[in-house]
């Protein structure tokens, strides 16, 4: 879907376009708020706040970033604000696999395998340092460009790149420790 067109329609007050925008980005925003806040209810609450804020400030998106990068920055800032209000980060809790939208089909065997992979992956991600996790979330998981992540985190481009590479290597090494057969099938 053409995001620019969708945004333009939202700015004109098209309720249908706004619903489509919410449905398109809800999972990404929620994934980011879950990552930062851990607690599902807090994450849902902040994700809703992000969309309400977006609704009020649709006109302030003027390009420069992609819309997704802009939205995720808004989500990240909202999470940081909430964490400041909470004064301390809540205890780390693994994101349940049931939450992850990974089901690739109706095949129960395939779904079970996918869930097992997701569980392993989330466990390994949770073991990473906070810095590595954050870069990994934005660049590798959410697929933002290097420049967008650098701008979002206010870090030099080189720092983001090296941090991302170290995070991936650390993750791969952790996965191999958790499951020695991980990656064995890849040619």
């Amino acid at each position: 879907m053409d995001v620019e067109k969708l945004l333009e329609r939202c700015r004109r007050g098209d309720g249908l376009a706004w619903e489509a925008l919410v449905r398109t980005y809800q999972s990404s925003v929620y994934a980011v708020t879950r990552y930062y806040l851990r607690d599902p209810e807090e994450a849902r609450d902040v994700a809703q706040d992000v969309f309400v804020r977006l609704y009020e400030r649709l006109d302030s998106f003027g390009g420069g970033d992609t819309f997704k990068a802009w939205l995720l920055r808004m989500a990240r800032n909202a999470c940081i604000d909430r964490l400041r209000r909470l004064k301390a980060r809540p205890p780390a809790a693994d994101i349940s696999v049931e939450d992850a939208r990974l089901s690739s089909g109706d095949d129960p065997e395939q779904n079970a395998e996918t869930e097992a992979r997701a569980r392993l992956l989330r466990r390994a991600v949770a073991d990473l340092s906070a810095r590595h996790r954050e870069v990994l979330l934005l660049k590798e998981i959410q697929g933002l460009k290097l420049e967008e992540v650098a701008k979002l985190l206010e870090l030099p481009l080189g720092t983001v790149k090296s941090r991302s590479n170290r995070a991936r290597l650390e993750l791969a090494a952790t996965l191999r420790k958790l499951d020695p057969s991980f990656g064995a099938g890849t040619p």
Partner: protein
Amino acid sequence: MICDSFLERVDALLDGGLAGPEREETLGHLALCPDCRGLFAALVAVGHTSEDPGLADAILARTSGAACDSTRSQLCARVDGELDAFDADLVDRHLGRCAECASLARALERVREDLPTLAAIDPGPRFVDEVLARTSLRPRRMPLGARLATVLSRLLDRPRVAWEGAFVATLVLFAPGLPPRSPLGDLPRQALGQLRGTVNDVEATLVGGARDAWATTGAVVVGDSVAMASGLAEGSTDTWDKIRQRFGTFTGSVASGQKRGEAGTSDREPDAAQEKRR
């Protein structure tokens, strides 16, 4: 030909790259020089022996160290396809020999495939409805320019705006240009004076009217109130006199009854009959 020249050409001779007079000259030296013949034989033998697997590692250990760190620093770029052909070939050669790095590379490939699947987490079926409910109740915050445009548009939509605009424009355009003693030069001041006079007249009329109304209504109200109060006072005096009169009659009869009671009980009956009649 001297031995140094032979050494310069020996690689080409082994690869079959020498031809013509150079080849003839090199082979001629080989036939005459026993040292060069022995070296050539040794070099030919190298091609038929198996590589010593530990030799390169031993050399690397004594020189630059293992290349695993260098490889891993480029492994992500290799997986992402960002290396040029030369560097990619170097990394691939290392991966061909180092099982540890090769396993890590395979894990990285898998991570690259799997990580994007974590990008979306379903916040639940009611999430969208809740967001829509919250946003439908709120007005969107408009930028300052748009808000000003809206206000201006509403202002211009007023029916009298054309007349008001024309009046203001006339004042702005003509009033400053009029000579001070012109009969029209004092027009704005006169208009203002008239307006003030009108306002004063209206105010005076309103105040006077209110005063007259109060004078009339107030007199009636005060008169009625006084009459009502005096009526009440008179009524209460009459009532009080009646009560006092009755009370006096009652106490008088009680006193006379007591005197009769002292004289005899039979005297009480007429009093009771009299009280009953009363």
